[in-house]
């Protein structure tokens, strides 16, 4: 076998320039594909991560009616039953994050805007999303009675620390909810659609505002092991009254986002496969030329007593080696590039940044440094190379020894 591999290796260098050109086409395709895949996966991961951190959490427990009609009247009573349910799965649950949220009107001077009010427990909230690290100004809900507002909202309402914000809305069971709240902190949120409208209160202040003592719109549950959400939800559902409660995983709570990401992933894959198709034809061209040039040599080798199977191994190996070289070089070149980009994501500025933000996305192009990015591209190219390398095998089994040796 070593003789055949040696022959295959030397054969590919018989036409050095042709091999280098073909391997280079594979090299550039692999670089382009890995960078593109890394960017797509990085962007998707960031979007999902932001949504999970700031919005849905990994698992949410809600009142049964809240999903159909998300109003304050359909909030969840954070009762002992629920506390016992959580305690019963303490081996699987890392921590919980209670939230009460609704839309209200926020007014400053003559300006009024709809805002999303979220009552949070600061200590557990930061475990989920490290919100305190995004603080731009002031403090992170340290005292009672103050609000933390998002940076975009502060800009729009021209608010600063110490300014007073008027909140008007509806509380539990038709009670009116209104109050004056001093701004004690400003935070930058990475989801633009939240950054423009978010107001945080302490959970107890929010419950008081809404006249909803011990009530939550959702209880976020974080599993100890990520990726076990579905199994955990299945187990917890066994101890819940399905007529009163709903348990959702993050996937169930953002179906439209996931659909959009899936569409994006498929269109990205199509572009990559189009690229591979072009590269595949390049490899095929090289293999066809090689077969044409070496027809006589194949005939001679077979007439000397080499078996077709042995010759097929040589022909297959050398055809595959060209793709393999390109893949190895592509991964060697792509790894430092993606490593750098994953630590220094490209950040958009100016009009482009505004345009991206208008789509509700963070104006940043993150890259994912992950084994799967390289493995999937390497596998794809090697499968294409392998399929193309089957053609010389087919030809070797079909070759007429005498005609080939005379050619």
């Amino acid at each position: 076998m070593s003789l055949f591999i040696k022959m295959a290796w030397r054969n590919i260098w018989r036409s050095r320039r042709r091999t280098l050109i073909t391997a280079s086409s594979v090299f550039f395709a692999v670089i382009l594909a890995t960078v593109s895949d890394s960017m797509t996966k990085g962007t998707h991961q960031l979007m999902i991560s932001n949504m999970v951190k700031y919005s849905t959490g990994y698992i949410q427990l809600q009142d049964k009616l809240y999903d159909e009609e998300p109003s304050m009247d359909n909030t969840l009573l954070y009762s002992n039953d629920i506390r016992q349910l959580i305690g019963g799965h303490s081996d699987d649950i890392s921590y919980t994050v209670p939230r009460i949220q609704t839309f209200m009107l926020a007014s400053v001077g003559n300006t009024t805007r709809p805002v999303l009010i979220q009552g949070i427990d600061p200590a557990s909230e930061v475990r989920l999303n490290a919100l305190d690290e995004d603080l731009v100004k002031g403090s992170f809900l340290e005292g009672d009675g103050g609000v933390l507002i998002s940076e975009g909202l502060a800009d729009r309402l021209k608010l600063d620390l110490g300014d007073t914000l008027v909140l008007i809305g509806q509380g539990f069971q038709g009670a009116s909810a209104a109050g004056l709240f001093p701004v004690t902190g400003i935070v930058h949120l990475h989801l633009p659609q939240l950054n423009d409208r978010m107001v945080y209160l302490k959970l107890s202040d929010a419950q008081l505002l809404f006249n909803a003592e011990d009530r939550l719109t959702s209880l976020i549950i974080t599993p100890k092991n990520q990726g076990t959400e579905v199994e955990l939800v299945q187990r917890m559902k066994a101890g819940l009254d399905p007529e009163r409660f709903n348990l959702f995983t993050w996937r169930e709570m953002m179906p439209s986002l996931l659909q959009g990401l899936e569409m994006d992933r498929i269109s990205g894959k199509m572009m990559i496969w189009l690229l591979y198709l072009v590269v595949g034809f390049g490899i095929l061209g090289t293999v066809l030329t090689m077969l044409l040039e070496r027809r006589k040599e194949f005939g001679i080798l077979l007439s000397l007593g080499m078996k077709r199977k042995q010759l097929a191994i040589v022909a297959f190996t050398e055809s595959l080696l060209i793709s393999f070289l390109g893949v190895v070089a592509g991964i060697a070149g792509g790894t430092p590039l993606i490593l750098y980009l994953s630590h220094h994501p490209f950040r958009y500025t100016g009009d482009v940044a505004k345009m991206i933000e208008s789509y509700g996305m963070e104006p940043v192009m993150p890259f994912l440094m992950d084994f799967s990015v390289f493995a999937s591209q390497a596998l794809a190219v090697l499968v294409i190379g392998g399929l193309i390398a089957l053609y010389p095998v087919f030809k070797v089994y079909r070759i007429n020894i005498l005609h080939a040796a005379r050619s």
Partner: protein
Amino acid sequence: MPIISTQGLTKIYNERIVPVTALNNVSLDFDAGEFTAIIGPSGSGKTTLLNMLGGLDKPTSGNITINGLEITGMKENRLMDYRLRNIGFVFQSYNLIPVLTAIENVSFIMLLQKQPRNVIEKRAIELLEQVGLSDRIHSRPGELSGGQQQRVAVARALASKPNYVLADEPTANLDTKSAFTLLDIMEKLNHEEKITLIFSTHDQRVIERARRVITLVDGTVTTDIPVEKQQV
């Protein structure tokens, strides 16, 4: 008992369109250790006969028996194996494997035969010494002259210790000096190792060395003359 025997060997090309008879009812016997030259004008059927004897082509009718074994009806895989172990080939245009060195080219057949590595190396070096190329064992074909390449081809043909060697116009592309050197080597191996040599040739230098000369004209044997030779 002859080592090779052909009975009524006939080969017709393009049977259904314009039939061309390359060989017509050729019956020949070759004894072990013979040095035979097959001569004749172009298109007389010399190469076709050699291809048949090498199991590279199948006759339209007739049969070939080698060491009592009929090869005309053999399946391809068995025939390939038979060729590998019993027949050495020397081609007009050398046909060495360009990516292998001289010693690798000579070792190639023995590697296919799965002989032990130490045996392969020893025999390859011996053979290259015998053909006068002990100083060029690591040269690739492109670094050797035509005569040197043909000597490597001879060493390769003999590497598997074949029963017989078929040589298709082996001196056609060689200058006089190289041709004589090659013939000296082959004659010596024929004499010392009793290897049967069957040449197809136009070359008078080969004919003069052969101990039997068969003339083919239009696919038919017209003369088959043993030649009185001096011992080498």
